[in-house]
């Protein structure tokens, strides 16, 4: 296969773009996809400060490197979840990456926040992945607001977005369907959230990470089953194989035709937000979910100590 740009031997084949690229031209394709996403969705400008959530995986590290390459003012934020045998490895990858590329990094330790994820697994009777995700989003938002950042960027790619949209559609979850998208504007205690990799698949970010010699943390989380999310991705992988480009069409079609209808409905029936009575974060339930989780862990630990 020949490179679509320079006609040299290609190293990456992209059926959905009817294209192939060599090692020199592939990063140019990647850069253009990210540039297009930022420009068309009006995500942020070169005058703004961007906080980038870094897990240590291929997507977040590729995003950080690419935004820095494009001249954006970026700072990384890594949350050390405190999971033995896993979190220290992820943190080391993120710290080494930022040091190697001269990038700013902030690390939040859940142990110091009094809520390491092993405590949640032990004391909270809810799926640990969903609680962990909620806590991470809470702190990403809090730190972005407290640090005066203009936007929070995450490494969600097209496969993540399509799998989430598919799951939300299977449940007809109108609240999530009303605001899923590459940009969530700032509102009522929430920072602006952006997903500059939403036009790129996991395969595309994996190729970029490889060609840029990014050392990634690829070990699965020891607490994650990932079953439904991964099976949805595999299902979509098959559809994409049979009909290249279908993932992007499905997602773009939703943004254009589906999301506005769900957003209008949610405006009519959605719960109004108010500051959490304990921490001030926006919530529709008086006390926000993270403060409720903290209380549940405290109570469970106290009961365990009494017994």
């Amino acid at each position: 296969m020949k490179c679509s740009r320079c006609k040299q031997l290609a190293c990456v084949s992209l059926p959905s773009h009817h294209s192939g690229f060599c090692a020199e031209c592939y990063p140019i394709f990647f850069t253009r996809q990210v540039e297009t996403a930022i420009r068309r969705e009006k995500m942020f400008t070169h005058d703004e400060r961007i906080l980038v959530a870094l897990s240590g995986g291929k997507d977040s590290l590729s995003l950080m490197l690419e935004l820095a390459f494009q001249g954006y003012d970026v700072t990384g934020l890594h949350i050390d979840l405190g999971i033995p045998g896993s979190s220290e490895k992820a943190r080391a990858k993120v710290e080494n990456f930022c040091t190697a590329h001269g990038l700013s990094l902030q690390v939040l330790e859940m142990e110091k926040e009094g809520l390491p994820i092993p405590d949640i697994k032990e004391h909270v009777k809810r799926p640990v992945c969903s609680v962990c995700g909620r806590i991470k989003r809470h702190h990403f938002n809090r730190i972005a607001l407290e640090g005066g950042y203009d936007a929070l960027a995450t490494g969600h790619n097209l496969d993540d977005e399509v799998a989430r949209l598919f799951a939300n559609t299977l449940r007809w979850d109108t609240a999530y369907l009303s605001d899923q998208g590459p940009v969530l504007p700032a509102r009522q205690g929430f920072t602006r959230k952006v997903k500059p990799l939403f036009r790129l698949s996991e395969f595309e970010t994996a190729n970029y990470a490889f060609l840029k010699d990014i050392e990634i943390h690829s070990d699965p989380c020891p607490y994650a089953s990932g079953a439904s999310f991964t099976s949805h991705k595999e299902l979509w992988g098959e559809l994409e194989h049979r009909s290249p480009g279908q993932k992007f069409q499905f997602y773009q079609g939703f943004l254009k035709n589906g999301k506005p209808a769900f957003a209008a409905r949610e405006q009519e029936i959605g719960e109004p937000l108010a500051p959490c009575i304990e921490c001030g974060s926006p919530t529709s339930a008086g006390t926000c979910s993270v403060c409720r989780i903290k209380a549940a862990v405290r109570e469970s630990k106290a009961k365990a100590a009494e017994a």
Partner: protein
Amino acid sequence: MITIHLEPDNEVIELHGTKTVLAVLNRLKLRSTMAIVARDGQLLTPDRRLNPGETLMVRKVTSAG
């Protein structure tokens, strides 16, 4: 024989009778956009031919989210 280092599973697999990257992916039950394949640090497209005795890195790209 082709030796495969499968990531992130950290497995080593030996395949016989596979002459292209696509054939390797088929034997591993992977679609071409579900894994990246490299030989001697160079990425390979599915149409590339392989020689007996070569070693490949096959890295699955699907994250658990």
